[in-house]
């Protein structure tokens, strides 16, 4: 049984594309509405990040509700273990379900030392595998983690993250196996620019039954490309892509082309779909998808 458009799309075996919005630094809900409007119609659902890199932003739950209620774009509520213990996590999940959120992505979360409040006490009461199992218990067994009955259980699909760039990849696959066993229904990956990494990932998960949406993010500048390669773990940007960007007279156009090609690669290799993190290029997402022809 599917509770969400995202899951219905995955189950229909259509190439499924999700997007992502960045909550604002401040209480400006227009930022959420603006990004969501640009993505609506292009993606089946959009993730809302949970204070990524430990940088304090508007809470994801509020953003998900704004996005769904005011724009009508389905949310994937990203939940990390960095700032909330098992009590707060479950409590927020119940609230999210009551607000109509039907997809959740279970993450461990970045360490606060990377963010803008490095002095904060890290929580990490649970890790992503344990969070997945807890969510499954709430949805499936209709109880909380302690076994107490929930009067109405949340109806949500549980997604998990996957880091294709970890080398060797085996420990990541072992962890994915545990997540699947714990109840994960779909996976979204960290950004990938290298088709070899995609192919390696496809082989590594061949024995597993889980739809994977491969992460991509348009490189809006050469600076961003260099930053990603240096600072995002496991991200490799192939020489050809760097050369294309360096030679480009119109970076936006080139990036749309590169990202469209990556989308085609993801579909050809046989993944269930793609997860586009537009990081400021929300207005280009429609064109990227159109040009890739993956919906054709």
């Amino acid at each position, binding site marked *: 049984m599917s509770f969400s458009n995202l899951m219905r799309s995955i189950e229909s075996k259509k190439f499924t594309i999700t997007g992502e919005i960045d909550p604002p630094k401040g209480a400006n809900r227009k930022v959420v509405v603006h990004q969501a409007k640009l993505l609506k119609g292009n993606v089946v659902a959009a993730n809302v990040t949970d204070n990524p890199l430990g940088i304090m932003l508007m809470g994801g739950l509020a953003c998900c509700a704004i996005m769904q209620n005011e724009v009508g774009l389905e949310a994937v509520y990203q939940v990390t273990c960095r700032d909330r213990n098992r009590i707060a996590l479950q409590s927020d999940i119940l609230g999210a379900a009551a607000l109509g959120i039907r997809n959740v992505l279970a993450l461990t979360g970045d360490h606060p030392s990377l963010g803008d409040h490095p002095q904060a006490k890290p929580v990490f009461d649970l*890790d992503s595998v344990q969070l997945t199992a*807890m969510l499954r218990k709430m949805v499936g067994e209709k109880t909380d983690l302690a076994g107490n009955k929930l009067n109405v259980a949340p109806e949500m699909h549980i997604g998990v993250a996957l880091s294709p760039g970890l080398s060797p990849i085996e420990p990541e696959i072992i*962890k994915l196996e545990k997540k699947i066993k714990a109840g994960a229904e779909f996976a979204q990956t960290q950004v990938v620019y290298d088709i070899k990494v995609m192919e390696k990932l496809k082989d590594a998960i061949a024995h597993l039954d889980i739809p994977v949406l491969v992460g991509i993010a348009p490189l809006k500048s050469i600076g961003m490309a260099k930053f990603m390669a240096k600072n995002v*773990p496991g991200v490799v940007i192939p020489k050809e892509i760097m050369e294309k960007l360096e030679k480009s007279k119109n970076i936006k156009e080139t990036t749309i082309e590169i990202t469209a090609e990556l989308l085609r690669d993801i579909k050809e290799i046989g993944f269930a779909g793609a997860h586009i993190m537009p990081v400021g290029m929300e207005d280009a997402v429609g064109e990227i998808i159109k040009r890739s022809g993956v919906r054709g």
Partner: protein
Amino acid sequence: MIVTKQKPMEELLEIIKPYKKVAIMGCGGCATVYETGGRRQVSELASKLGNVVVSGVIPRLCSIEMVKTKMPREIEGTAAIIVLSCGIGVQTVAEFLSEKVVIPGLDTFFMGRREDNFFVEFCLGCGNCILHTTGGICPIARCPKSMLNGPCGGVYDGKCETDRTRDCAWMLIYSKLKSQTKLHLIRSAAAPKDFIKIAHTRKIGGAK
């Protein structure tokens, strides 16, 4: 060992300002081994301060019996005692000499050991040791997120996202268990930690 460091001299001088005469007590345990509160550090501090009327080292300041039997009588003549030990020693002395002001001369960090020019944390005292399942490498103490089910997404070339000079504990665990053909040990999901055993303030039975 319990890892300690001497407080900055300016901070210590500020704390002892109100006291004309002070005593210094060092500890013969961890603080002696790691040269923060042994005989030499006690006498060095005494000569820097100049108003120290009595000083010494007690074999284990974390033992209430040793503090009771080995504390020098001359301590009576001072209002304040600087203790060069971990927080356990400081509190034990404070309890025994309840009318005196006890000043920590050291900052206490963690349970760990020396590695080259660093002290590294190795145990968080979580009350439920799992080292037999993780190749003798503790993910609770040596992973900043205390992950129990494998590495997080923040591994850069085998190093940790929070400190790229430190090996990811989970990559070490993986390599070790792989080389021992014991990867099955980490294939089933580890349940959430029981923080009843970890939460402050802890007290356990069984002391003899």
